[in-house]
């Protein structure tokens, strides 16, 4: 499990404009430099934030993915996916 790497990707999307635009254009290639498990890569590329959250990724950081429209996410679908989690 590489939760640290997932959190780091979210933060880089916010802070590194170059990484952000690369990820918007070619997400699979852009995240290839991070050590993720096959499952984590799949969840990220499909914008499955609920599964990433369940793995332990930080929700505040995950929302950066919706703010900058990477991995098919926007605020609307992000809200629905996250709220589907039972608390």
């Amino acid at each position, binding site marked *: 499990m590489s939760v640290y790497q997932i959190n780091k990707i979210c933060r880089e999307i916010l802070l590194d404009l170059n990484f952000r635009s690369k990820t918007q254009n070619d997400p699979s290639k852009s995240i290839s430099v991070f050590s993720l498990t096959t499952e984590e890569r799949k969840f990220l590329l499909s914008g499955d934030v609920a599964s990433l959250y369940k793995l332990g990724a930080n929700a505040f*950081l995950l929302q950066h993915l919706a703010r900058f429209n990477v991995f098919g996410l926007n605020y609307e679908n992000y*809200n629905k996916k996250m709220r589907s989690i039972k608390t």
Partner: protein
Amino acid sequence: MAEIVAAFGIPHTPSFVATVAKEGPEAPVAKLFQSIKNYLDDVKPDVIVKFDSDHWNTFFYDNWPTFAVGISNETAGPIDQTPSMPWYKVLVDESLGQHIQNVGVNNGFDLSFTKEFLIDHSILVPLHFLTPNMQIPIVPIFINTFVPPMPSANRCHDLGKMVRKAIESWPNKKRVVIMASGSLSLEVGGPRMFEGKTFGVPDPIWAERVVKYFESSNINELVKNSTTEQIAHAGNIAGEILNFIALLGVVGEKKPIFLETQLELGNAFVAWRLDK
């Protein structure tokens, strides 16, 4: 010696900046900040000490302090690109920051420090409204209010008491204001968001209770009840209460002279006069 002249507990909700840019000074939140600004201008501060929650921007999991002081001549931000906010350069009072770290380390608080750092909306939203010319230097004291294990409420209260002692022993005839910011109950990006929003307020009853503790200056009850469990129940960002608790360590038992709430956002605007 320096004198602590006032304290302010306020929110730093990033969307306020765009709201006021659009709606102007008549927006309800602009009026709330204007009330706080009037109190701030009245006490003519020379420096602002700010208890702050960095939101994974100044620091990250590679290097995350429990308590840290920003010791520098300047900083800038917002690095998290707060919508409608300009890029600000902010003066930092290096001498007071260094003094607080020295007093802390000599009194059981092994404070970390950073000498080159940028800041996010949590410092700059309040400053954007309160000192828009950025003419007053700040000293940021970062508290880990988000990443478990967080410092206890009691420890943060003691931090505030130590900071009070430090400021009062600073051999400069300066007027010092203390600030803390955050929300009392807040979930950002997590499962307890409101439908169609980026945030939620999971525990409005807790937020109301906290406001009552402020009103009655019942700090001991606030500290006692701000447990790890209560904070987690109030949202993934509700640890920001620890900034307020540190602030109350400076304030002591004084009652606020101004208190307004925005409970739909889990927010409070509070002012204390502390000058003689």
